[in-house]
C-alpha cells in the first residue's frame, strides 16, 4: 500500500509524457492547421500536469495561460485570417530523411550530454541531494537574519526579483519590445468607430450573461494571485495573464466595440507605461531613499545589507509584504494586463480596414 502510494505520481508522470509524445507527433504531421493548434494545446495541457507533478506551481501558473490559452488563441486568429491548410506537395523524401537523421543524431548527443551533466553514472533518477546554491537559497529565503535573506517564504519569486533582479528587468524589456514591434507593424490602423448593438453583435445571450457574472470573479482571483505573489505560488506575471482572459472574453463574446467603451489602445498604452514606471520605481526606491538621507544604497536592493543599511520594511502591522516585492508584483500585474489588452485589440481589428491601410502604404 505504501509503495503504491509512492508509485502513483511517477506512473502519472510517465503516462502523461507518452500521451504528450503522441499528440506532438500528430500536431506536426497534421495538414489541417487548426487541428495542429488544437493538438499542441493538448500537449501543453499534459506538460502542465508534468510541471505540476515536478512540484513547480509557479511554472504551472505561468505555463497554462501562455501555452494553453494565449498562444493557441493568437494562432487560431492567425489561421482564421490566413490559410487554413498546409500545402505539403513537393517535399522530397530524401531531404526530409536526411534532416530527420541529422536531428536524431544531434538530439541523442545533446541528450547524452544532458545526462552526463546530470550525473556521472547512467542513473537518470535524481539523487536526494541538490546543488549547494539551491540549498543556500532554500535556507535563506525567510530567515531571522535580514542581512542575508529576501524575507519571503516563496523562494522562486524571491530568486526572480531579489537575487536575479536584473534578469527579470531585461525580461520585461523583451516583452516591451515585442509589444512595441507589434504596434509598429500595425501603425496607422485604428479600430473603426461603430456603436455596439446588443442583439446584432457578439455571441449568444447565455454567453454574455455568464461573462457579466464571471468577469469580476476572474479579476478578484487574478488580483489575489498577483498580490499574494510573495506568499503563495504566483506573482505579477501570473496574475496578469490570468486577468488578460477577461479582456479576451470581453472582445470575443461581446465585441471590440463594447470593449472600446472601457479602454482604447492609447489608454492601454498609458496604463502600461504607468506599470513600467512602477517597476523602475521598485528597482530604484532604495537608491532614492539613500540619496535623500545621504546613506549608501544599491540599485535592486530590497533588505538592508552589511554596508548599506537601508531597506524597506518587510512587514506592516504583522502582515508580511517582503519589501519591494509587493510594489514589483503590483506594477508587473498592471503592465502585463495592459500589454495583452493592446495585443488583443490589435488582433481584433477587421481585416478590411487593415488591408486599406496596407494598400495605401504599398502604392
Amino acid at each position, binding site marked *: 500500500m505504501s509503495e503504491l502510494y509512492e508509485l502513483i505520481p511517477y506512473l502519472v508522470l510517465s503516462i502523461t509524457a507518452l500521451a504528450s509524445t503522441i499528440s506532438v507527433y500528430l500536431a506536426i504531421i497534421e495538414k489541417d492547421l487548426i487541428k495542429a493548434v488544437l493538438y499542441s494545446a493538448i500537449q501543453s495541457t499534459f506538460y502542465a500536469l508534468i510541471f505540476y507533478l515536478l512540484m513547480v506551481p509557479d511554472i504551472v501558473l505561468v505555463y497554462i495561460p501562455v501555452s494553453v490559452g494565449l498562444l493557441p488563441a493568437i494562432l487560431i486568429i492567425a489561421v482564421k485570417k490566413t490559410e487554413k491548410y498546409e500545402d505539403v506537395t513537393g517535399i522530397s523524401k530524401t531531404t526530409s530523411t536526411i534532416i530527420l537523421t541529422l536531428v536524431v543524431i544531434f538530439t541523442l548527443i545533446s541528450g547524452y550530454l544532458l545526462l552526463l551533466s546530470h550525473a556521472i553514472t547512467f542513473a537518470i533518477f535524481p539523487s536526494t541531494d541538490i546543488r549547494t546554491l539551491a540549498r543556500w537559497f532554500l535556507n535563506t529565503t525567510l530567515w531571522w537574519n535580514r542581512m542575508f535573506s529576501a524575507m519571503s517564504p516563496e523562494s522562486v519569486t524571491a530568486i526572480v526579483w531579489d537575487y536575479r533582479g536584473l534578469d527579470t528587468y531585461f525580461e520585461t524589456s523583451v516583452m516591451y519590445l515585442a509589444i512595441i514591434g507589434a504596434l509598429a507593424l500595425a501603425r496607422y490602423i485604428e479600430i473603426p468607430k461603430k456603436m455596439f448593438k446588443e442583439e446584432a453583435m457578439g455571441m*449568444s445571450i447565455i*454567453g454574455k450573461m455568464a461573462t457579466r457574472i*464571471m468577469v469580476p470573479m476572474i479579476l478578484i482571483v487574478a488580483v489575489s494571485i498577483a498580490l499574494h505573489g510573495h506568499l503563495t505560488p504566483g506573482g505579477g506575471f501570473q496574475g496578469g495573464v490570468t486577468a488578460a482572459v477577461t479582456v479576451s472574453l470581453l472582445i470575443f463574446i461581446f465585441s471590440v466595440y463594447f470593449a472600446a467603451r472601457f479602454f482604447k489602445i492609447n489608454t492601454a498604452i498609458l496604463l502600461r507605461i504607468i506599470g513600467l514606471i512602477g517597476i523602475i520605481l521598485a528597482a530604484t526606491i532604495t537608491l532614492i531613499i539613500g540619496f535623500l538621507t545621504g546613506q549608501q544604497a544599491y540599485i535592486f536592493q530590497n533588505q538592508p545589507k552589511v554596508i548599506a543599511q537601508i531597506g524597506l520594511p518587510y512587514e506592516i502591522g504583522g502582515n508580511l509584504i517582503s519589501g519591494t516585492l509587493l510594489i514589483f508584483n503590483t506594477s508587473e500585474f498592471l503592465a502585463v494586463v495592459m500589454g495583452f489588452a493592446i495585443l488583443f485589440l490589435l488582433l481584433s481589428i477587421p481585416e478590411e480596414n487593415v488591408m486599406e491601410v496596407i494598400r495605401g502604404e504599398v502604392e
Partner: protein
Amino acid sequence: MSPIDFVLTVIGYILIGIGAFCQIVAGMGMNRFPNFFVRLHAATIAAIGGSFVPIIGCSLLALSFEELGDVRFFLAGGGFVAAVFLLILAPVGSHLLAKAAYFSKAAVLQPKVVDALEEDIRKGEVHE
C-alpha cells in the same frame, strides 16, 4: 478524529468515488456515441459529474485532514472557487461550441431522425 471530521471524510470519499464512476462512463460515451451533438451529453457528465463533484469532495476531505495545519483552509477555499468556476463556465462553453458548430455546419449530423431547429429556421421563427 472528531465525529464531524469523520463525516466529512466519508462524504468526501463518496463524492470522489462518484466522480471516478462518472469519468469512466463519460469516457465510454465519448468514444461510442455516433456524432457531435450526442457526445455533448457525455461532455456534461464529464464536466459536472466527473469534475465538479470530486473537487467538492476533495475540499471536504481537505477540511477534515488535520495534519496539514491551518493551510488546509486555503486548499478547501481554492477547491470551492475552482468548483464554482467550473459549474458556471463548463455548460456555457459547451453551449457556445454547440451553437457555433450547428450554425457553421462544421459537425456532421449523421444518424438524423428529426431536426426541429432546422424546421423552425425554415418557418422563420428562429434566427441566428
